[in-house]
């Protein structure tokens, strides 16, 4: 019965075809370093899911941001767990994505015909760092406030346009409610949307042009 339903669905959706293309494709001999891309994707999904749950209670306003985070920690069942996973998952993601880039670099896997895979990967690394930077402000505690003060001041040291960048980042001269709101918007809408699109291209290319083998000694 179940088999019949599966066959019926598969006949219409072509799931077997997708499965074979995505999971049963031919790959060269690999090692454990080749799992970091999947690990990055897993962490992206994990951050997305825990982030959705945090957004149920979090309020991006200076009046309520800190208290709403305290409420998640003390007032909501398993709030500490969801926030803890999001907090540590963020650090883990930066580390994993970075090591994923190192593997690609040391195995010279960025060369023809995989340049665009590499380029989208670079953008994904930058977006991941952007997620870390914008997410760090959201708890609206002393560390968040001063880290963002310092981070935006560093951006302001850019020659000529530094001052302008600072005002764009903060939404004015001061680190204010406007800053918190725009960091929140970038953190939950702009960057995730950009990353989802880039991951789509990245994965499409991994399937289309494949992954490179581990370089041999004489290469």
């Amino acid at each position, binding site marked *: 019965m179940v088999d019949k339903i599966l066959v019926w669905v598969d006949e219409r959706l072509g799931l077997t075809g997708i499965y074979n293309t995505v999971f049963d494709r031919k790959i060269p001999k690999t090692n454990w370093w080749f799992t970091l891309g999947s690990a990055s994707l897993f962490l992206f999904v994990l951050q997305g899911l825990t982030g959705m*749950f945090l957004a*149920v*209670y979090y*309020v991006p306003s200076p009046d*309520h941001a800190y*208290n*709403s985070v*305290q*409420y998640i920690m003390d*007032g*909501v*069942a*398993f*709030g500490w*767990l*969801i926030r803890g996973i999001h907090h540590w998952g963020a650090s883990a993601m930066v580390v994993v994505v970075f090591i994923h880039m190192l593997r690609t670099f040391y195995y010279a896997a960025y060369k023809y015909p995989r340049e665009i895979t590499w380029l989208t990967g670079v953008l994904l690394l930058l977006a991941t760092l952007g997620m870390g930077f914008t997410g760090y402000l959201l708890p609206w505690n002393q560390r968040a406030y001063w880290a963002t003060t310092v981070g935006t001041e560093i951006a302001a040291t850019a020659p000529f346009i530094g001052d302008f960048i600072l005002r764009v980042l903060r939404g004015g001269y001061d680190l204010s409610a406007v800053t918190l709101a725009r960091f929140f918007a970038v953190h939950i809408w702009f960057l995730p949307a950009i990353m989802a699109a880039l991951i789509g291209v990245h994965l499409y290319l991994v399937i289309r042009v494949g992954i490179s083998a581990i370089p041999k000694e004489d290469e």
Partner: protein
Amino acid sequence: MKVVLAFLGTVMGAVVGLPAISYLISPAARVQKKEAWIPLGPLENYPVEVPTPFSFTRTTVNGWEKTVNSHGAYVVRKGGNELKVYSNMCTHLSCRVTWKDDLHEYICPCHDGHFDAEGRVALGPPPQPLYEYETKIEAGNLFIHFVEG
């Protein structure tokens, strides 16, 4: 093999799913019962046989902030220490009723519910009469027993 997989799948689903569901329904699971005696001031402030409105607020902590809710009541003195206090909350869908002197009825503006002077349903969709507060009089002051939740 299939049994082991099904068992492990159930365990993993529960480990992930139960905290997630608890997290979402957590505020709903916390029902605070609120009750207090609300002072309405000296009894002689309320005229006899004229439904007189009285309003008060109750403050609750919801999540990360305080919520202030307004409540209203109509005090109807029958003379002496005899009186009735009706909630102004319509029993249909919780809109607020107003006493109309010309009609001699409480009217709910939302779905045209009518209650007579004794709080009984006179017309419209309300399923029950207006809620009547328990009252007490201490040293000439009127109190109503407010219960919620």
